[in-house]
Structure formats: structure tokens, C-alpha cells
């Protein structure tokens, strides 16, 4: 066990750790806060919340985002909701239950201390957001409404229609803009962080590129917070925004921050399948659809072929020729098995040749049965019709379905051109969230002193698999309620550090490195576009480091990625200049980092000889094809250190003192 990986979990009882920590952590007095500068990179839930909260406390904050406005960060796209252990529904929820569900959902690969703290502050997040004017859904009595989400037995999810992420982000964004208006935060939109500046081993600032003018800028900070999100775009196709990238985290990694559990990737089972090679991103269809949709593929291969070349419509396939494979394999949970299980089962069928669209990568999500038999018949009974016709059943049922999922059905039709009231939806799993990220201790500090990682950018709370509605919770917990305390622990010792001039040799040298790299990219003047390499990388990652992995595939993936890296650096074509608004140049830098990250992900996946959560190694499964965890040998966090000649693995052992480890079963 390496000494450097001190998680700094406070001593004591699990449910007293955070309280005790808060009352004993070092504080910075108000006068000193005014002379301490903090850089926040990213303006999503974690970034906006942190920037606003720290500015409110009196720190001088600079916030950076690559989008044209902080409000566009990809947190905005989260649909479902945010968990909090409020127990407003009186259904037995508690901090402990939320903690327990999160650890279990994460397949016992998360830290108890961090997760318990997350569950503790979850409740305050809702209070804070409501005070900010976030319009959560409410009951007629005026109190907050909750819904249930996968993997839990209580209703603890707060939501704002299907736009919860948007509303929470706009709340944090307005708090941020308030501080901008007061001059406490200086906002740098359309700025991309391209390196961390370290002086005497501590993070002291960043090099950022003004994306409009192309000018490189040096910014000093007593501490640097990376709130730059996840790296799902390493797969090229994902539900992430086009601009989501790993660059900030990767540069930090190159400067000494360890990358933890990079192979843990969450694949969401219900996304709209890609329609062809032009596909640029994937769109999520809410998981709630699985409540009323039945998932199937044809039982006969010849039918699947006919569907693929368009000579057969799904509605023509008889009931007995359909394979409702989830209901077949998991009779107890059926179509409602957890995300990872549903995703793998779809891949298994498609790999076996039963995929239903031209790309061979799609299965059906069919509402017909529930529309007619469940809702149609109930409605007919309500209307007093004894022997409804098939047309009546469909009409009545469609009305109910429209009420429940109308906007999703419309969106599906908008994107695919197919009316899901008439034909089953096509769905396929897609990369959705990355549980891995920069290694951080209890303070959210990386292995570089003064450099922090918050939200999806860190690895800390979701273990090997994230539960639905927990990403928003973690981003806001880190930003609003954790970092304002934990940063004091570090900054209290920095009050004597005067602002360092950006003419310091470390700034000059780092800027030079960034500039050289940009020039290098521009000067290759090869023949292939950045996207060409990104697509190739994505395909390798998806095929060999996606839903299911095996040692052989991973080894060949590493070799292929190294090949892509060599080709990229010798034959990529980046048009335009450095000193202008150059979106291809931005992409080139990001893809260069994705290529390196891809290799590490494969390496990490190869190292982890077990299956857990989002990491499924084909060699490690039960006879029935379920994930087989190895708690004896792999109950640790993999933290990778970047070294001259490759990566070095450090292990942080996970101790479960409050939860009994058990196998997950959904049979």
C-alpha cells in the first residue's frame, strides 16, 4: 500500500465523521479570505456551486468554462432527478439507507466515509435549491413531490419534469452570476484550461486559452478546482455533450494527479440507436419507459435479417416468434433489471445476430401490450365498454401512454421519424457516465496539493456503478457543502502565500509547453481530420472496453490505440491558425488526450480481474452469465500515476466497516 494514497477519512463513528470534521477543520478568517484566490475550472453543477459558495464566503474566484456561457455545462441535460434522504414520503428512508443503497449500487467499490457524507448533505441540497427558486415538482398541498428510481425501495427522488438537471444548474448558475455581478467571481467563458501550473509541488494556477482570440493566458490561484465533468466522449458516441472532454483532468494527471478507476463506465440501456456513420452523439430515453415497455428481439435469425434489410416490420412478427429475453432470463425483475444488466443482455442478443436495425445494434422496446391490455382495457372498463374492439383498446391505451410519456414519444419521433405509438421503439445501450476520475481524498484534493477535483471529474462516491439520480446529488454536494469546508483545511496554511506573479518561471515554462503543443498540432498538416481519429478510437473503446471486456480484447485495444496515437501525431490535419476561433484545434487537443486516456482505461480494465458494476470482464462471470466480483483480491481503488515510461498502479484498500458485502442478484 502506497503511503501517498492517504484518503484522510476522519477517525470515529461513521455518522459522526463529517460532523466532527466540520467542527475541527481549520478555518480561514474573513480578512484573509479576501486575499486568497481560487480557480474553478468548469461551470456545471459542481463548478457553479463551488464558485458561488466560495465567493459568498469571501474568496476571490475565477471561473472558467469552454462554452459561451456557464449555463450550458452538460449537467443541464440530466433528466430524471436528484436523490435526497428527506423521508418526506414517510416510507422509511434515512441517511443510512441512502448511504447503503449507494454503496450497494456501486457494487462495493466506493469509500464508506465519502458516501456517508454525501448521504448526510443530500438533504441540505434540496433546501438550498428550493431557496434559490428551483421549481421542483409539487403536490397539490404545496409540498415537494418524489418519485422512485431504479435500485431503491423508497421514493427519494426530487424532480422538475424531465429537466431536473437544467433546473438545478440554472439555480447554481444564477448563484454564480450573482457573485459575478458583485465582482466576487470573474467569469471566463469560452476559455479552455490547457494545463495546471505547479510551483514547489503545489498547484498554483492554470494556463487557459481564450477560444475566441486564441491567446494563451496565465492565471494564478492559491488553489485550483477541477469541476470539468466526465470523459464518456472517449467512446466518441455517448450521451455526453459534444464538447465534454477529459483535457483538464488529463493535464492534471500529467502533472501528478492520479487517475482512479478509469475503467468504470456506466452504459445506459435505453438510448436511441445510431442511425448510421454520420451519428455524432446519442440521445437518452428516460429509464422510466422500461416500466411500460417490454424489451424483445426476434427469436429467429432470419426475421432479424429481414428487419435489418427492411423487408419486414416488427409488427408483422408473431408473438411466439419474439424473444422477450429479459423476462426470460430474469423472471423476478424482468424488464426492470438494473442498467448494467439490461445493457449487457441487449449487447449479448445483438452480438448473437438478433439486432433489429440496419446497424445490427438495436432491440425493441414495445409498448403495445401494456398500451392495449393494461391501460386500454382499464380505460374501456372505466367507460363501461364490455367488449372493446382492438382499435378501441389501442386508442384508449395510447391516451394513457401519451399522458405519461408524451414528450419522450414526441422526441423519439422527432429524432427517428418513426411513430412509437404505431411501431415499437428501437433502443440500444450507450455510454452515459464515468464513475472513474481523478483520485481525491476526503477533502476532494488530488495527489497534487492545492489541486481539487469535484463532481464527475473525481472518482469518489459511486464505486463501480452509479445509481440513477445520484450524479446531480454528488455534483451539488461537492460544490455547495463539501469544498467550502475542506478547502479551508488547505488554505489556512496558505494565508501567508502572496499572489505569485504570472511571470514566475513555472508559468512561463508551462505556457511555452502548451504553445509548443498547439504549434505541433497545427504543423502536422496531415490528411485525416480529428474526427477520423476520434471515431476510430471510439470504436475500439466500444468494442473492446465497453459493456463487456476480456483480456485478449483489451490487450489488442492497447496496441491499436498506441497505433492510433502514432498516426494521429503524424497525420492529423488541423486547419486554421492558433490565434483565432478554431474549433478544430480545440477538438484536436481534446482527442489527443482521449487517445492517451483510452489506453489507460484499457490498462485499468485489464488489471482488474473481476467483474463489478460498470466493469464486466467476460472471464469473470457466473455460469448464468452474471458478474462475478472478487472481494478478496480487488476490493481496492486503482489509482494510476503517470510516469515517464508509463503508468504505475497504486492501490487504496477499501474497508467496509458498516456494511456487509454481498453479491447483487436480480433473478
Amino acid at each position, binding site marked *: 500500500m502506497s503511503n501517498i494514497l492517504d484518503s484522510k477519512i476522519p477517525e470515529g463513528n461513521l455518522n459522526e465523521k463529517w460532523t466532527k470534521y466540520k467542527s475541527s477543520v481549520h478555518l480561514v478568517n474573513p480578512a484573509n479570505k479576501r486575499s486568497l484566490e481560487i480557480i474553478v475550472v468548469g461551470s456545471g453543477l459542481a463548478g457553479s456551486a463551488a464558485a458561488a459558495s466560495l465567493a*459568498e464566503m469571501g474568496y476571490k474566484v475565477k471561473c472558467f468554462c469552454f*462554452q*459561451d*456561457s456557464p*449555463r*450550458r*455545462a*452538460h449537467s*443541464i*441535460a440530466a433528466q430524471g432527478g436528484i436523490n435526497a434522504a*428527506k423521508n418526506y414520503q414517510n416510507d422509511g428512508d434515512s441517511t443510512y439507507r441512502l448511504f447503503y443503497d449507494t454503496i450497494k449500487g456501486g457494487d462495493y467499490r466506493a469509500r464508506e466515509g465519502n458516501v456517508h457524507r454525501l448521504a448526510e448533505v443530500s438533504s*441540505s441540497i434540496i*433546501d*438550498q435549491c*428550493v*431557496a*434559490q*427558486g428551483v*421549481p*421542483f*415538482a*409539487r*403536490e397539490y*398541498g*404545496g409540498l*415537494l413531490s418524489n418519485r422512485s428510481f431504479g435500485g431503491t425501495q423508497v421514493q427519494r427522488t426530487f424532480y422538475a*419534469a424531465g*429537466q431536473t438537471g*437544467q433546473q438545478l444548474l440554472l439555480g447554481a*448558475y*444564477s*448563484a454564480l*452570476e*450573482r457573485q459575478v*455581478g458583485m465582482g466576487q467571481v470573474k467569469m471566463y467563458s*469560452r476559455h479552455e484550461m490547457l494545463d495546471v501550473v505547479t510551483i514547489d509541488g503545489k498547484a498554483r494556477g492554470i494556463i487557459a486559452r481564450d477560444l*475566441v482570440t486564441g491567446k494563451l493566458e496565465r492565471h494564478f490561484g492559491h488553489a485550483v478546482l477541477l469541476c470539468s465533468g466526465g470523459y464518456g466522449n472517449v467512446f466518441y458516441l455517448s450521451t455526453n*455533450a*459534444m*464538447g465534454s472532454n477529459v483535457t483538464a483532468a488529463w493535464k492534471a494527471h500529467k502533472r501528478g494527479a492520479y487517475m482512479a478507476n478509469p475503467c468504470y463506465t456506466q452504459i445506459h440501456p435505453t438510448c436511441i440507436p445510431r*442511425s*448510421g456513420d*454520420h*451519428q*455524432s*452523439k446519442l*440521445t437518452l430515453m428516460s429509464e422510466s419507459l422500461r416500466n411500460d415497455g417490454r424489451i424483445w428481439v426476434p427469436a429467429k435469425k432470419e426475421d432479424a435479417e429481414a428487419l435489418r434489410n427492411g423487408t419486414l416490420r416488427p409488427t408483422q412478427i408473431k408473438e411466439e416468434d419474439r424473444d422477450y429475453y429479459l423476462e426470460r432470463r430474469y423472471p423476478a425483475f424482468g424488464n426492470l433489471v438494473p442498467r448494467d444488466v439490461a445493457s449487457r443482455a441487449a449487447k449479448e442478443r445483438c452480438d448473437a445476430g438478433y439486432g433489429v436495425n440496419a446497424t445490427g445494434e438495436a432491440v425493441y422496446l414495445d409498448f403495445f401490450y401494456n398500451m392495449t391490455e393494461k391501460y386500454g382495457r382499464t380505460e374501456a372498463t372505466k367507460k363501461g365498454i364490455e367488449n372493446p374492439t382492438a382499435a378501441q383498446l389501442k386508442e384508449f391505451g395510447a391516451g394513457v401512454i401519451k399522458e405519461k410519456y408524451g414528450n419522450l414519444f414526441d*422526441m423519439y419521433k*422527432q*429524432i*427517428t*421519424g418513426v411513430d412509437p405509438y404505431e411501431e415499437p421503439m428501437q433502443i440500444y445501450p450507450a455510454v452515459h457516465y464515468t464513475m472513474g476520475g481523478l483520485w481525491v481524498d476526503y477533502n476532494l484534493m488530488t495527489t497534487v496539493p492545492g489541486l481539487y477535483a469535484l463532481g464527475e471529474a473525481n472518482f469518489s462516491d459511486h464505486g463501480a456503478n452509479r445509481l440513477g439520480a445520484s450524479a446531480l446529488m454528488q455534483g451539488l454536494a461537492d460544490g*455547495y457543502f463539501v469544498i*467550502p469546508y475542506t478547502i479551508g483545511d488547505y488554505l489556512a496554511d496558505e494565508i501567508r502565500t502572496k499572489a505569485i506573479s504570472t511571470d514566475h518561471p513555472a508559468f512561463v515554462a508551462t505556457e511555452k509547453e502548451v504553445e509548443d503543443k498547439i504549434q505541433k498540432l497545427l504543423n502536422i498538416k496531415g*490528411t485525416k*481530420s480529428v474526427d477520423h481519429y476520434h471515431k476510430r478510437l471510439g470504436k475500439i473503446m466500444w468494442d473492446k472496453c465497453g459493456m463487456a471486456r476480456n483480456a485478449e480484447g483489451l490487450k489488442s485495444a492497447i496496441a491499436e490505440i498506441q497505433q492510433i496515437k502514432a498516426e494521429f501525431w503524424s497525420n492529423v*490535419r488541423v*486547419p486554421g491558425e492558433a490565434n*483565432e*476561433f478554431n474549433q478544430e484545434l480545440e477538438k484536436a487537443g481534446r482527442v489527443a488526450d482521449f487517445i492517451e486516456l483510452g489506453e489507460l482505461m484499457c490498462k485499468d480494465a485489464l488489471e482488474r480481474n473481476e467483474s463489478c458494476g460498470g466493469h464486466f470482464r467476460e472471464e469473470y462471470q457466473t455460469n448464468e452469465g452474471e458478474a462475478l466480483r472478487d472481494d478478496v483480491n480487488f476490493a481496492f481503488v486503482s489509482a494510476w500515476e503517470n510516469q515517464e515510461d508509463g503508468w504505475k498502479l497504486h492501490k487504496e484498500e477499501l474497508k467496509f466497516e458498516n456494511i456487509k458485502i454481498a453479491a447483487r442478484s436480480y433473478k
Partner: protein
Amino acid sequence: MKINLKVWRQKNNKAKGELKDYKVDHVSPDMSFLEMFDVLNEDLITKGDDPIAFDHDCREGICGSCSMHINGRPHGPLAGVTTCQLHMRSFKDGDTIVVEPWRAGAFPVTKDLSVDRTAFDRIIAAGGFISVNTGNAQDANNLPIGKEAADEAFMSAACIGCGACVAACKNASAMLFVSAKVSQLALLPQGQPEAKMRVMAMVNQMDAEGFGSCTNTGACSAECPKGIDLSNIARMNREFFSANLTGK
């Protein structure tokens, strides 16, 4: 499909721009409008030309980045969708499509089809918030809010800040954007203490940014991808009158 494009090209804010003709072959009806631009850009890069700059990010209709004025309409021919959700099946083989950036003095062109919308951020910074520091909140359910008011506030809060309202308005007015935020907070009890200051400050900033004034044509609401209603503007007017008449 084959598509002919007339696209606004402008190197930067200072440069003069012009419409340029492009042809895109092999367009699939299943492509989104932006994916069609990806294909065109790929082609331009391979040929050694400068690709077309345009703003986009989430490509699922919620981030508000995409901002193309297509055949004379913000976000193109369909109601209630952003450019990223517009698909090529809405066009015919051989169509000529004119694509321009949002046009407004307050939205200067950054490059090609990309514009600077930070004016919106400054309006929010002027007052589009509730002043509550982290950690000061009471229990969320201590403040019951009627479902109707909450739902209405949500409808106003659904604004994605894309700027289509400004782009559509013949006066390049930002009233729909500003009123959506004013309304959201005016409808909620939490927003009351600062209501007067807020509307005055936001309208003031809106005017200072150089947006035009509202003449109630309704184009903004008709083109809004989230269907923000004109009643928001009426509410803001009321709020503004009452703030002026009874405020400090």
C-alpha cells in the same frame, strides 16, 4: 439527398462577412441538421478549406448552444425544436437552404455562425437570482408552494437561453428571455423580497445591452423551442410598473 447551402462566412467580429455556396451530397434524411454540417466540415477539412464555425454542445435540445437561422427562421422550419433536433427529413432533395447567425447588435458574430450571447449572462448577473447564500436555507417543505404556481414557474424556468427569441424578433428584443426569468422568480414566494429590485435591474441591463423593445408581434414565443409564453412578458410589464410606482 443532395442539399445546396448558402452559409454566412465571417472570419471574426471585425471582418466583413458574406454568404457562400456549398453543396452537400450523400445527406441522409436521418441526419440532424448539425450532423449535415459535420459532414460538410469534414469535407472542407479534407479539401484544405476552413471549416464552418457553429455553436453546439449537448445536441439534445437543452443546452441552448445551437443557434442557426435557417431559411429565415431561428432553428429552422419546425416549431418547438432546436437546430440540433431538426433532421434532414424536414427538407427535400435538392433544396437550397440559407443559414445565417443570430442577427442582433447585442449578439456580435464571433465567427461564421457563432455569436456572443454573454449579454444574457450579464442580464442574469444584474438580478436573475434569489440572494441566498449556501447554507442559509430552511427545510424545503417549510414553504409550501401551490402546484399551479410551481408548475407555471417551471414553464417559465424551462428557457434554455438560446436567443431564438432575439433572433426572431424584428426588433431583436430580449423581452421573452428576461421576462421568463422575472416570471419564474415572481411566481414563487422565495422571489418576493427582491422582486422589485430584480425587475428594475434586469430591464435596465437589458436596455443597456442594446436589445430592441417589444412590439408584441409574438414571433419570439412562436419560435421559442421551449414554448415560453407571451404572458411572461405581460407579467414582467406588470412587475416593472409596480416596481416603479411603489418601489424606492
